[in-house]
């Protein structure tokens, strides 16, 4: 399985500012995913990020609000732009392992964001 790290682990930000979250994987992966988990709720996929191409966003999420970079096969960033209190969530990075044991998603530890 992949080992995934995220930075920062948590942050408290002011309304109107932006925060960039980093995700690092210990092996090369084709696809990386960004999820949002709002307080007390399940996971919602924001976008999938393929190295060398623009991210694909799910309904309700737009690039201007959540720009994503994927410069290489082990790293991605998610920026939460022009933040409001409604953006307070846990943001999770994940990768899909298509190895011999089959399709499985593995998750990073998450970034807990509070917007004041």
């Amino acid at each position: 399985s992949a080992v995934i790290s995220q930075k920062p682990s948590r942050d408290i930000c002011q309304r109107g500012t932006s925060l960039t979250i980093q995700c690092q994987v210990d092996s090369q992966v084709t696809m990386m995913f960004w999820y949002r988990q709002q307080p007390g709720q399940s996971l919602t996929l924001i976008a999938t990020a393929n190295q060398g191409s623009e991210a694909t966003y799910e309904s309700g999420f737009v690039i201007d609000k959540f720009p994503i970079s994927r410069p290489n096969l082990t790293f991605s960033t998610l920026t939460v732009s022009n933040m409001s209190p409604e953006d307070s969530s846990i943001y999770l990075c994940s990768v899909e392992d298509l190895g011999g044991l089959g399709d499985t998603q593995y998750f990073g530890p998450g970034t807990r964001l509070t917007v004041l």
Partner: protein
Amino acid sequence: AQSVTQLDSQVPVFEEAPVELRCNYSSSVSVYLFWYVQYPNQGLQLLLKYLSGSTLVKGINGFEAEFNKSQTSFHLRKPSVHISDTAEYFCAVKAGTYKYIFGTGTRLKVLA
């Protein structure tokens, strides 16, 4: 459309008692099913998965789940829980290439 339903939002259980967390899915394609656990202030950790083969799947920490195609269920069980099992548990189904659907989660609270 594929979906996952976790009927119980919270399950309290006494330590060393058995527990079952329920998960039902709907899917029109081959079914890949997963259970993840989220401990407080942490990310999601894979507990177990069903991709094919035996319908009884064993995972980490003594958990197991049974895939029941006729009832479209994938319930998670543990014969004897510990305080350390207190966490949020998510059931998920793979809904297509690079797409996973997660249930709303079940908060397991183990009481001393």
